[in-house]
């Protein structure tokens, strides 16, 4: 991998912005959100030591978009190249998950792939994981080694820039005058920072060291009462699924426009009451606790069975965003404990 050094981020961002639209993190309250990069710097760009609050899927699956028209046909339009700065390893893994679903051979979503192909990804190391981050439980790390075009690691006196794709290599070649070689001490500093962030994550999540895989814990919980109990705090705001970078359910609906009919595609949530209901009235997930169970089963069992990976990257956005205070980690802990007490529970039931 091509590894280079740059003293300041501004020339790098300016160079990207010269080629395409660029979105960068800026602070909004306690969190980071994405904002269009402005060379004047008056939009408040800030290097994010942690993931943004909003999910990356926004760039690939808009909240609502036109999917078809009558009269038609309507086709996905060519998208102009765009770049996003400040993605973390969890974000890159969330894109890999969405790719599995939307770039699937024979069943491709042309609207997704049009954007995906034009997205220039600049990731960065996570030097300050949040209390809610638990990526280490799901094979994630606070730094990325693949899945990006460029990756940026912050050091005391500058930034290490790595090119991870042909697009990235072409970019650093074109702007080679911006970069110098990486001083050896800076590489060592990066290793040290990365190790420190990993340690912090492990400490934060010491209680999440399970004796079996998350899949086994969740899969074995069909009869568990934990979901109904946890759902008592749920106010059905659906924030958990909207803010989740991997949740990708959508709803197709038809509308009348002035001179055409439109079929729209809009984010949906499996936590919504009528989500799985059919016209005849049947609904396998009428009960809120069952919907919560389905959400976890999809993330940790079904998706894994189907695509060979968990549909959760442990970014903790759902923990931060949940108005009812439902914490995925707490649910997993409770299910794990229940698992351990399984023998005892069965004996109780038998009485």
């Amino acid at each position, binding site marked *: 991998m091509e590894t280079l050094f740059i003293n300041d981020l501004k020339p790098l961002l300016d160079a990207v912005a010269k080629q395409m639209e660029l979105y960068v993190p800026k602070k909004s309250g306690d969190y980071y959100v994405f904002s269009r990069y402005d060379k004047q710097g008056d939009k408040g760009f800030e290097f994010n030591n942690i993931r943004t609050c909003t999910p990356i899927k926004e760039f690939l699956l808009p909240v609502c978009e036109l*999917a*078809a*028209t*009558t*009269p*038609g*046909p*309507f*086709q*996905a339009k060519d998208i102009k190249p765009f770049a996003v700065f400040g993605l973390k390893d969890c974000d890159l893994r969330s894109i890999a998950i969405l790719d599995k*679903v*939307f770039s*699937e051979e*024979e*069943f*491709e*979503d*042309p609207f997704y792939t049009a954007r995906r192909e034009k997205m220039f990804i600049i990731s960065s190391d996570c030097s300050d994981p949040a209390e809610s981050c638990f990526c280490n439980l799901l094979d994630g790390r606070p730094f990325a080694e693949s899945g990006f075009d460029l990756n940026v690691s912050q050091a005391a006196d500058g930034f290490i820039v790595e090119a991870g794709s042909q697009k990235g290599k072409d970019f650093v070649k074109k702007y080679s005058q911006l970069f110098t070689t990486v001083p050896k001490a800076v590489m060592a500093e990066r290793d040290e920072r990365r190790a420190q962030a990993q340690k912090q994550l492990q400490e934060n999540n010491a209680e999440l060291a399970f004796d079996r895989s998350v899949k086994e814990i969740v899969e074995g919980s*069909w009869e568990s009462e934990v979901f109904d109990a946890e759902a008592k705090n749920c106010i059905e705001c659906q924030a958990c699924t909207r803010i989740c970078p991997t949740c*990708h*359910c*959508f*709803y*197709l*609906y*038809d*509308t*009348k426009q002035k001179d055409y*009919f*439109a*079929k729209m*595609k809009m984010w*949906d949530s*499996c936590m919504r009451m009528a*989500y*799985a*209901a*059919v*016209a*005849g*009235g*049947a*609904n*396998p997930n009428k009960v809120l606790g*069952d919907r919560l169970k*389905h959400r976890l*089963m*999809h993330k940790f*069992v*079904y*998706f894994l*069975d*189907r695509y060979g990976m968990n549909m959760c990257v442990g970014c903790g956005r759902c923990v931060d965003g949940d108005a009812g205070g439902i914490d995925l980690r707490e649910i997993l802990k409770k299910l794990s404990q229940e698992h351990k007490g399984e023998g005892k529970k069965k004996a109780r039931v038998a009485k």
Partner: protein
Amino acid sequence: MNQNPYQPINGEIVDIIDESPTIKSFVVVTEQPFKFETGQFVELTLPGEGEAPFTPSSAPDDSEKVEITIMKAGRVTALLHECEKGQKIGIRGPFGNGYPVDDFAGKEVYIVGGGVGLAPIRSLFLTLVGRMKDFKSVVCRYGARTPEDFIYKKTLFGPWQQIKGVDIKLTVDEADGGWKDNVGVVTTILSAKDVKVNNAVAVVCGPPIMMKFATLKLLEFGFEPKDIYLSMEKNMSCGIGKCGHCMLGKYYVCKDGPVFTYEQVKQYPKIWD
């Protein structure tokens, strides 16, 4: 498949047949040829109003026309029931996997249906009898709520019963004065002697509760779960395994079904809900 999987192709309703008080069949002609396999489903769009999934009830060899039988059950189906001949309509698909008819060769095909569940079964039935010599027999057991709720009355009560190799028995939940046949739910006309289980496949389609009890009965007769084909009803929407509404365990009913063997889905709870 269409380049944009969400884009319907244009069609027009050219005929409407009243089947029962709540069920109508719509004959749709499409601008482009529309090929499907029996048991696959389509998404029918009423432009500007909405879309809903249906399994065509016509035989798949007729690419000029697609016939779709629709029960008035929700918002879109109620609007469709108000449509008249000439109504422009959109159609997406076909989606998913239908009945593996070639695998049924040399066997007895035991079809159990209820209510509007006869719609996909009609497509299968017409496919089977179109090449009857390939199968040992086609045995149908079919129930409706009342005699007037039967669909395809003209063919069901007459010509179909005359086809050589076909054995049809009917039942109703509630009889009226003219009904001379069996009264009771469909499982009451299933008998272990209907077919030789070790050389038969079963096909079940109908309301979930009927499918559940019919499946249990078939298992009791000795059918292997892999030989029981179920046409699952879930909230299929996108048709390509993405939007998530029709998930049944790890499966997307729209893409991996709607026809499943019981073997595939039996591991999951609540498949009948």
